[in-house]
């Protein structure tokens, strides 16, 4: 009879589904420099979410109204020409960057930056905002678009990032999602997402190159696709190379001509913003036409400029060649010759530039594949992966770290702990030692990049391992462990091996937000931040409690015979109580009932262990032993 009850409880569907949104789909987001796209997938059928005009692209442009509210997308793009001081675009180029990085991106910047430490801040409509907050506004708009169309609350997303994004930029992206009230199920590299979408759609098999040139970033990934496995062999890129740089090149050319006519001019940030729109117009026009005429108007002076495609190509050549050189390196890293590449998938709006297509075609000795929508394929891949993570999938994405990770050693030299193109997740440890007698602390400086010297690489974080007991120089053994998770995010731990003194830090990048800043922003951005937090903790408690219940059911199902009827019904009572607690919304009640269940099943657990051991020793469980030794 009890058996019956048990089986009934165990029946799928019997356990209540208490929290709403359990079957809500997670969305896929391509958070681009120029354009963003949101998509969703159901039954491996992805769909881009469009506006009433059928447009999937949402310009990654944000305008701030006087009351501080954000306007995102096409409207903001239009406001750029009228009220440039309230509008910001290409903010992705600043993710995880400090002031000095930003100044080195290019000569004429469409940003008014605030002097200061840590992550760069922008002056906009009289406020100071970080790129993380601005990105969060874009993500919020995408989330709203999805919620409007799907008619349920969206809380989870897969967000794509350039494969070549460093740890700081990845962390910044995740922080932005948190501010927007989105849980990031996974950060997926843009070319990998594109390959997933393309590969599934075209049933592609073999080695493919994905060449992704967008507005602000360039990636090249070499992947092997086979029977549902998408394995990245090598990847490379430039997180500050894209169509924006073409626009800049054209603008500089025009400005040079103006200088000849009007002499030296001082440009405000707002002038630059507007002039860059003209630069881009000229560039896009030259994709179709051999030449075009354009007008610049500021400082009360109007100038006319003519540019031919040949001239544009001359200006763009150094930029395109930079990408081609990266392609060569990635091919070499992937131990692959161009003619071994079965197809080249073009992604990103800038691959429409004829010069880009020509040079890519020449390098790989083949016509690049154009049978995809280069603007939407990344979001489609993100949506497919979002479905895979929530609903399940037979496909497997195996990615790599784009950049080597190391720590500073004597003389400012970087010792690499994890090499670039290592499959992730990965953990590697290296031992270092003290160099002074009695040294009680050791500074650990974490770096990312390929160069030999510290100052040529990106500084990710610094921390100090304290409490090393006095020893002679060279006697301490300090083991530094680097772990990179499936999002490509790094955690570093340090331990003195002989004494076990240890410290673990989730790397908070030098140009990231501090925990306090993040907390403040969360408070400001979400009126219901506290409630949201409570809901999350409750959800977590439920998930954990369900796991515990499932484990006990399984154990009862297999080893129920080890209990007498009284004991069994006693456990059943507790199980039922836990079930009730899960249906309620007091997470403390859930947690304490889990503890009760744990306590009340201890004897049972011990009997099961004893039985297992007895069987193993008497050889009953030969199969299991065979499995263990792998015959």
């Amino acid at each position: 009879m009890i058996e019956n009850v048990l089986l009934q409880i165990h029946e799928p569907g019997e356990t209540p589904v208490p929290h709403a949104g359990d079957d809500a789909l997670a969305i896929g987001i391509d958070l681009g420099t120029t354009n963003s796209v949101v998509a969703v997938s159901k039954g491996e059928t992805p769909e881009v979410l469009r506006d009433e005009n059928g447009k999937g692209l949402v310009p990654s442009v944000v305008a701030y109204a006087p009351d501080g509210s954000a306007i995102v997308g096409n409207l903001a793009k239009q406001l750029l020409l009228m009220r440039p001081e309230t509008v910001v675009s290409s903010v992705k180029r600043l993710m995880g960057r400090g002031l000095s990085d930003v100044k080195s991106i290019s000569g004429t910047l469409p940003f008014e930056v605030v002097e200061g430490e840590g992550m760069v801040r922008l002056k906009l409509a009289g406020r100071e905002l970080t790129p993380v907050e601005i990105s969060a506004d874009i993500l919020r708009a995408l989330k709203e678009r999805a919620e409007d169309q799907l008619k349920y609350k969206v809380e989870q997303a897969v967000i794509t990032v350039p494969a070549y994004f460093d740890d700081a930029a990845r962390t910044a992206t995740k922080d932005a999602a948190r501010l927007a009230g989105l849980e990031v199920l996974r950060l997926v590299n843009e070319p990998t997402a594109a390959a997933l979408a393309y590969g599934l759609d075209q049933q592609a098999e073999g080695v493919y190159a994905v060449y992704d040139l967008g507005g602000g970033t360039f990636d090249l990934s070499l992947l092997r696709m086979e029977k549902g496995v998408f394995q990245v062999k090598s990847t490379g890129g430039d997180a500050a190379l894209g169509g924006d740089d073409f626009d800049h090149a054209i603008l500089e050319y025009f400005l040079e001509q103006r200088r000849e006519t009007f002499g030296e001019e001082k440009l405000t940030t707002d002038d630059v913003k507007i002039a860059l729109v003209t630069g881009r117009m000229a560039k896009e026009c030259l994709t179709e036409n051999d030449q075009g005429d354009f007008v610049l108007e500021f400082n009360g002076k109007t100038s006319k400029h003519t540019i031919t495609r040949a001239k544009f190509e001359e200006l763009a050549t150094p930029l395109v060649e930079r990408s081609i050189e990266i392609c060569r390196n990635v091919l070499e890293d992937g131990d692959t010759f161009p003619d071994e590449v079965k197809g080249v998938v073009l992604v990103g709006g800038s691959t429409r530039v004829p010069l880009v297509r020509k040079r890519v075609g020449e390098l790989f000795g083949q016509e690049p594949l154009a049978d995809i929508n280069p603007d939407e394929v990344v979001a489609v891949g993100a949506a497919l992966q979002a479905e895979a993570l929530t609903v399940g999938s037979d496909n497997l994405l195996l990615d790599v770290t784009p950049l080597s990770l190391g720590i500073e050693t004597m003389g400012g030299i970087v010792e690499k702990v994890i090499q670039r193109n290592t499959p992730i997740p990965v953990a590697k440890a290296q031992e270092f030692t003290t160099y002074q007698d009695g040294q009680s602390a050791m500074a650990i400086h974490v770096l990312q990049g390929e160069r030999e010297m510290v100052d040529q690489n990106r500084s990710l974080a610094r921390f100090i391992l304290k409490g090393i007991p006095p020893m002679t120089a060279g006697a301490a053994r300090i083991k530094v462990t680097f772990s990179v998770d499936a999002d490509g995010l790094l955690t570093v731990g340090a331990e003195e091996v002989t004494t076990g003194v240890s410290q673990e830090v989730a790397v908070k990048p030098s140009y990231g937000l501090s925990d306090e800043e993040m907390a403040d922003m969360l408070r400001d951005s979400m009126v219901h931040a506290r409630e949201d937090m409570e809901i999350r903790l409750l959800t977590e408690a439920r998930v954990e409690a369900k796991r515990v219940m499932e484990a006990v059911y399984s154990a009862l199902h297999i080893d129920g015979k080890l209990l007498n009827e009284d004991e069994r019904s006693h456990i059943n009572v507790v199980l039922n109580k836990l079930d009730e607690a899960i249906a309620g919304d007091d997470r403390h009640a859930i947690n304490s009932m889990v503890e009760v269940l744990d306590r009340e099943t201890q004897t049972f657990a011990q009997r099961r262990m004893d039985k297992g051991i007895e069987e193993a020793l008497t050889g009953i469980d030969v199969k299991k032993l065979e499995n263990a030794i792998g015959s």
Partner: protein
Amino acid sequence: MDALSSNMTLRNDQSGLHPCWSCKGPVAEADLFCETCHAVQPPGHIDHFARFGLHNSYDVDVDGLERKYFELQRHLHPDRFAKKTPKEKSLSQQQAVTLNEAFEALKDPLLRADYLLKVLGADGISHDHTVNDPALLMEAMETREALMEAESVEVVNDLTMKARRDVRDCVKQIAKAFADQNLEAARKLALRLKYLTKLLEETRQHKARLVMK
């Protein structure tokens, strides 16, 4: 209570079983999932070969190894645990990390030789910077010179082909040395393989420079 639990530990050691972290039932060291409650387990303390169900042997069918690697990743990769509890997520990451490490160590003939030497209690070759095999040194010098002087792809191709053949022979000899349990010979051959691998890398770079110019 104390006596009982220490008694249990003792018996655990003999049976190779320990309690599942989730349902507390018995699981073996190599188990990826608990047989009872199907919870993912921490990576067991087993060597890389055992992780792929292989015996400690240098002879590894790399294609088969890779198939097994994909199959295991299909079950263990963190992407399969996005909806699970934090504890399970963390265990899946540990499993995937260990699997990646094992796969990297076994698929490459050089790393595999190094690893097997260590498993068998001999010195590996990874930290050996000095080569005191005069014949090998001579060969290395001559080949490098030939490579430096090569100015056509054909010449580099010839050198590459030779190096590839040498690698294949060397790998065979290493397998034989291991099969004969001659670790000293295996180690010496592994050092030669290390040099050949580096040479192949250099020919590849040299060719890339010639081809892409």
